[in-house]
C-alpha cells in the first residue's frame, strides 16, 4: 500500500496564532467593562471605531502589498492592536483622532515594516505616541469617574501629582485632589485591577509568560519605593505607581507583545525591567504624564542589542 509522506515531526499541538490573539481579546474584556462602568459607553464606541479602522487599514495594506488578506484579517492580531490603543486613550477622545492613530499604527507601525511578525515597534504604542505628540491636550484630559462622567474632565492623577509637586504643594495637598483614589488614581486604579485580572488569566492559560510583566512591575515598583523611602514628600510610592496610568495594561498586554519584545527569558527580564524603569523616570521627571508608551518604544529600540547579548547557553557548550 502507498502512503503520502511528510517531514517530521508528524504531530503538532494545534495552538494557533488566531487562538492566542482571541484569548488576549478575551482577557481585555474586564478592562473594557470597568472603563464602561466608570466612564459610560465612550470606551465601547472607541473600541468599535478602532477595530473597524484597523480591519479596513489591514485590508488596504494587504491589498497594496498584494498579499492574500483573508487569513491575516482573521488572525485577530490587528484587533488586538486596535483594542489596546482604544483602551489606552482617554474615553472622551474624538473618534476621528482614534481612527487616525489606529490607521497610523496599522499602516506605518505594522505594515511599513512588513506586517505581522516583522514590526520592531509595538504598533499600538506607535499609534499612541503619534496621538500624544500631535494632540497633547486631547490625549491628556481624562474624565473623573462617577455618574456625571461627562461633566468633568481634567488631568490624570499622574499629571496632577507632577504639576502639583513642581508648583510647591505638599504630597498631602496634592493627593487630596479628586483625581486620586485609594491606591492610585481615581478610576484608573480599577482599570489597573481589571488589567491585572486579565493578565492573570493570560498567565494561567500560558498565553504569556511571567518574565516581562513581573520584571516590568518590579522595574517600576522598586525605584518608586526607594525614592519614596528616601523622599516621601517628593515621590509617590510603589502602590501609587502600580495602580495608576497604564501600568497593568502595559505590563500584561503591551510589553508582552512578543513581536517587538526581546526573545530569550533573560532578555525578557531585562526588557521588562527596562520598561518599568523608563516609565518611572518619565513619570517622575519627564514632560508627559504617563511614560508606558514611550518606555515600551524605547525598549523596543534596545531589543536587537538585548537579543544579541542574552543568547542562552546551549546544551554541551561552556
Amino acid at each position, binding site marked *: 500500500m502507498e502512503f503520502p509522506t511528510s517531514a517530521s*515531526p508528524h504531530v503538532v499541538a494545534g495552538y494557533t496564532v488566531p487562538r492566542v490573539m482571541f484569548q488576549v481579546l478575551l482577557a481585555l474584556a474586564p478592562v473594557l467593562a470597568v472603563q464602561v462602568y466608570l466612564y459610560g459607553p465612550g470606551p465601547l464606541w472607541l473600541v468599535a471605531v478602532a477595530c473597524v479602522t484597523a480591519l479596513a487599514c489591514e485590508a488596504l495594506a494587504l491589498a497594496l502589498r498584494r498579499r492574500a488578506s483573508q487569513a491575516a484579517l482573521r488572525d485577530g*492580531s490587528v484587533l488586538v492592536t486596535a483594542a489596546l490603543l482604544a483602551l489606552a486613550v482617554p474615553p472622551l477622545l474624538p473618534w476621528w483622532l482614534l481612527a487616525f492613530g489606529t490607521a497610523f499604527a496599522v499602516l506605518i507601525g505594522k505594515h511599513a515594516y512588513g506586517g505581522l511578525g516583522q514590526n520592531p515597534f509595538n504598533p499600538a504604542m506607535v499609534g499612541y505616541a503619534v496621538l500624544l505628540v500631535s494632540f497633547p491636550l486631547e490625549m491628556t484630559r481624562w474624565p473623573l469617574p462617577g455618574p456625571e462622567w461627562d461633566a468633568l474632565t481634567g488631568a490624570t492623577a499622574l499629571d496632577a501629582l507632577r504639576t502639583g509637586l513642581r508648583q510647591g504643594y505638599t504630597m498631602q495637598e496634592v493627593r487630596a485632589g479628586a483625581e486620586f483614589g485609594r491606591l492610585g488614581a481615581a478610576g484608573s486604579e480599577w482599570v489597573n485591577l481589571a488589567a491585572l485580572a486579565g493578565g492573570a488569566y493570560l498567565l494561567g492559560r500560558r498565553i504569556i509568560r511571567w518574565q516581562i510583566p513581573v520584571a516590568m512591575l518590579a522595574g517600576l515598583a522598586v525605584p518608586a519605593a526607594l525614592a519614596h523611602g528616601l523622599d516621601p514628600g517628593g515621590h509617590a510610592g510603589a502602590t501609587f505607581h502600580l495602580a495608576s496610568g497604564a501600568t497593568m495594561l502595559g505590563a500584561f498586554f503591551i510589553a508582552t507583545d512578543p513581536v517587538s519584545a526581546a526573545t530569550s527569558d533573560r532578555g525578557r527580564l531585562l526588557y521588562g525591567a527596562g520598561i518599568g524603569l523608563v516609565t518611572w523616570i518619565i513619570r517622575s521627571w519627564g514632560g508627559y504624564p504617563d511614560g508606558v508608551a514611550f518606555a515600551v518604544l524605547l525598549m523596543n529600540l534596545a531589543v536587537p542589542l538585548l537579543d544579541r547579548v542574552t543568547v542562552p547557553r546551549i546544551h554541551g557548550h561552556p
Partner: protein
Amino acid sequence: MSARPLLRGGLRLESHKTRPLQQSVQPMPAPSTAVLALDQGSGEEAQAVVTAGTRVRVGTRVAVGCGAATDLHSPVSGEVRAVEPRPTASGPGTCIVVASDGRDERDPDLEPLDWSALDGAALLERLAGGGLAGFGGAAFPTAGKLALARAAGVELLLLNGAECEPWICCDDALLRERASDVVLGTQVMLAACGAARATIALEDDKPEARAALEAALADAGDSRLEIVVLPAVFPLGAEGLLIAAVSGREVPSGALPPEVGVVCQNVGTAAAVARFVSEGVPALSRIVTVTGSGVRRPANLEARIGTPVAELVAACGGYGDTPPAARLIAGGSLTGRALASDTVPVTKGLNCVLVATAADLPARAAQMPCIRCGDCAAVCPVGLLPQQLHRAAHADDPAGLARFGLADCIECGCCDYVCPSAIPLTAGFRAARDRQQLHEAERRRAAEAKTRYERHRRRLDEQVDAERRAFEEARRRARGDGAGGN
C-alpha cells in the same frame, strides 16, 4: 531513585501505549522472502559477501560491516535471490533478498559464547561478529561503540529504556517480559567496555517494566547495576539529554559520550547481546511496535530483520477501514520517518510502525509569520532559540546559524509541536544543515582545485626555471668553452 525534573524544556505528551501492551509480544513467523537492507539505519552500507544463488542458513553471515554498518546475517534458511536496490525505510538502498525454504535450518557454526572467560578485547571481537546494533533507532554498531568506550576508559554504562515517543512501547514490552535478558546483556557489555557500573534508565510511566527489572536485578544480585526512574518527558530518551539527566554531565558539543566517561546503549540491544552470548544467535530479530488507529489490533511483534512491513501490519489484523490509514510512519510521531510504501523491510533500527489515521496526526494549520512568541525556545531541550535560528536559516546566514547552534539541534521537533504559527522549523533546520554540507563540500572541492592548480603552476614554473637554468648553463658552457678555446 526518585523522579527528578532534569530536562529543560521538553513536552509532556499524551501517551498511546496501552493498546499494544494489552497482550504479550507476538512472535512473527519467518517471512517467505527476507529483504536485508545493507544500511540498517545507521546511514552506511555493509558489504555483501553473498551473490544470487548462495545457499544460506539461519544466522549465516551475508554481509560484512565496516564503519557505522554491522555484519548482517540471514534470518531464514534458503537461497539468496538477488543483491539489488530496493526501497527501504531510509530511501532506496541495496538489499540482499533471501528466499526462504521454509525449513529454518540453523547455521551449525552458531554456538553460545563463554563470555565470562574472555577478556574485554577478545569479548569485543566476538561481539563484533554478532551483527549487534543500536536497537533504539540509530543502529550504530554496538561493538564499535563499546570499543570506543573501552579505549576512552568510561566509568558508566547507561542503558536507555526511556521510550519517550508517545506511540512506541517495544522497550516497555521487552522489559516486562525479558528483564533478565536485559540484565545479562548489561553485564556482558560492562565486561566488554570496562565500565565500573551500569545504570538502567526508564520513565515513571512504566511501573510494570520497572517491577520486572527490579525482580531481575534482585535475582542477578549484581551491585554494579542500578535503576534510575525519570519523568516521562519527551525527548528525554535522546542520548545526550539522558546522559545529562542521569549523570549530570553534558557531552560537549560535537563530542561523543565517552568524552564524559559514559557510554549509552539501548535496552533492546542489551537483550540482543544476551541472546547472542547465551544461544549464539546473532541479531536476527527485534521487537517492533505496530500501532496507530489505522491498524486493527495494535501489538508488539517479534519480527525477523528483513520482514516486509506489510506482513507486520497483516499480522496485526491489517489496515482498518473506518477511518482509513492516512500515513505510515517508521518510528515515532515526532521523530519518525514517513514511509511511502509498506513494502520496506524491518531493519535493526526500526522500533515502531505507526499506522496513523488522519485523527491520529491532525494536519497542521496554514503557516503564518513567526510572531516571536518564544514558545519554541521554552520547549527546546538543548536550549536553542529556534525562532532566531529560523530567521538565520531563512536568511541563509551562516554566522547566525553557527551562533544560534544549528549544529546542536537534535531535530526532536518540540519547537514545531508548539509553534502557533505552524512553521515547519525542524524541516527548515534539516534543510539548512543539508545546505551547509553542500557548501562545505563545494568549499572543499574548490580548495582542492586550488591546491591542484597551484601545484600545477609550481610544476610549470619549476620546469620553466629548470629549462632556463639548463639553457643558461649551456650558454655559459658554450661561452666558457669558446673563451677557453681562445
